[in-house]
């Protein structure tokens, strides 16, 4: 059946599928999404997928951590006009990229033991490390409202605007007491892209940085600040590297070691 609706595919590389689940959790809007989009390929949510048609938009979740991710990604890029990286894994590498600095051989042995050597594993890197990405929507998982705005903008032929504001700004807009100042916590709010309405600090939990860094996040100044609170560099690194290590670890702190 031919129609004028944009043909889309939603794909998952190595990931927890949380971003695809976040889309399925758009309960009130799901029927409208299904009406507005011609969903051709979405393995997680439908049967009878078509894996050859050219797509107007591909939404890609997950990190490239296996050779088959890379093959899948190249195939997706080849058949799609626009590629939207969704979720922090796809945009920044996510939790899978936390230990890239340790050689895969060592990691494999540590996790699976000496005997097993069949696991297909490579240093985990975000989608943009391999193919052109047109739009990046981070989040762990993505924020439902932001996803819907991205879709709505694309449907109207506009590029979506994702505000480059810090979590601190949303935290202050919500009038939370600062967890760095008042409790000496390692809170990643100053480094991290907003969009969550400072969800964690609003519940007295320091920001873990799950949306990944804001444009030009000031890592050095953050590390210096946390050090003055008596927190060790290792602890700071561990916290700050949880979701977006490839964004900065290679040329920043590791270089110091």
């Amino acid at each position, binding site marked *: 059946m031919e129609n004028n609706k944009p043909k889309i595919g939603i794909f998952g590389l190595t990931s927890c599928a949380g971003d695809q689940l976040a889309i399925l959790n758009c309960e009130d809007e799901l029927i409208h999404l299904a009406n507005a989009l011609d969903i051709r390929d979405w393995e997680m949510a439908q049967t009878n997928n078509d894996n050859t048609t050219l797509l107007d938009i591909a939404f890609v979740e997950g990190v490239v951590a296996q050779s088959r991710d890379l093959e899948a990604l190249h195939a997706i890029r080849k058949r799609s006009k626009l590629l939207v990286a969704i979720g922090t894994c796809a945009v920044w590498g996510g939790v899978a990229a936390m230990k890239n600095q340790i050689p895969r051989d060592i990691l494999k042995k540590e996790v699976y033991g000496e005997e097993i050597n069949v696991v297909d594993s490579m240093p985990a890197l975000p989608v943009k490390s391999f193919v052109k990405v047109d739009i990046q929507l981070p989040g762990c998982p993505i924020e439902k409202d932001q996803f819907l*705005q991205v879709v709505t903008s694309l449907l109207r032929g506009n590029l979506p605007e994702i*505000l*480059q*504001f810090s979590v*601190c700004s949303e935290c202050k807009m919500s009038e939370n*007491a*600062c967890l760095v100042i*008042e409790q000496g916590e390692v809170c990643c709010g100053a480094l991290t892209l907003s969009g969550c309405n400072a969800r964690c600090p609003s519940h007295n939990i320091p920001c873990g940085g799950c949306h990944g860094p804001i444009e030009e996040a000031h890592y050095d*100044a953050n590390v210096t600040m946390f050090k003055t609170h008596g927190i060790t560099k290792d602890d700071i690194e561990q916290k700050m590297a949880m979701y977006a290590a490839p964004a900065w670890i290679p040329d920043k702190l590791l270089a110091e070691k």
Partner: protein
Amino acid sequence: MKILKLPKTNFKLFMEGLQNYGEVHVPKKKSSQSFVFGPMENTSEIAMDYLRTINPPKKYFFKPKDTLFNFSSTKGFTEVIEDSDKKIVLFGLHPCDIHGLKILDIVFGTNYPDKYYFARRKNVIVIGLSCMPDDKCFCRSMATDATEDGFDLFLSELKSSYLLTVGSSIGDDISTDLKHLLTEVTKKDTNEYLKIRKERKNRFTLSLDTSDLPYILELQRESEVWEELGKKCLCCGSCSMVCPTCSCFNVYDIKNLITDSGQRVRQWDSCLFKDYAVVAGGHNFRVNRADRVRNRYYDKQNGFVSQYGKPSCTGCGRCIQYCPTKIHVVEVFNKVRGEA
């Protein structure tokens, strides 16, 4: 100007009496070190000894996130001014925050009056409250440690009473309404007030030398101070959010999925964010952190002075208290002066 006396024993009844004039909002404790303005549930939660709230009173008039209008391909534009009819009695503003509102009145009232701001401003009764400074207050240097206007009522605390200054006709209505709670000011009260005033003056430990400051800033545009500060500043924007006079906003549309309609929204912005000064075509006028940090200081103590004849800093100390990396505005200006 009329000055009466409110004995502390009548304070609870006075606060309850204010409820006839609107929803009473008061300073409340939020955490061990922080306070916020919020609706009064009962009079016992009023933090009478608070010094500064996280967000200044601007949040009532210039909301952190605000819908400006709805749009639709079939209905065109429909204006939205949320809370434009809501009567609020905002209790407990210290003189610096009253000055903050006076500065915002200039910002939002000059050239293109902002109807969203003023629709709410006209419905809010402002009741001031005296204070004793801490080590982050430098309002005295900014000449905002006292105010003769900008309030409807102002309470100056004495040991067992408050001196109640009437500052407007609505303030006069309230004091007339609640006159059974008020008494005359005696000679003893006046002496007590003068004594406290003197004590307050001596309590200030922080001061900023503002003489020639705009001139010095003009000369120090290329000072290494800004480069150093750019290395320390996280550019998180917290200082802009909590500043009583920062009033920049970003405007964007929230579009509806099914119909050709949506809302135009504005949201607090900060000149410290990387994309603040990006223009069409992608050029960024303040691409370096140091440029952005410098801009914020120049806006307060140089640009605003050229435009309106006074700085737009009230010395409230919020940017000092809420900077995670302990950048101290007074120390910055002392360095620029070559005096630190």
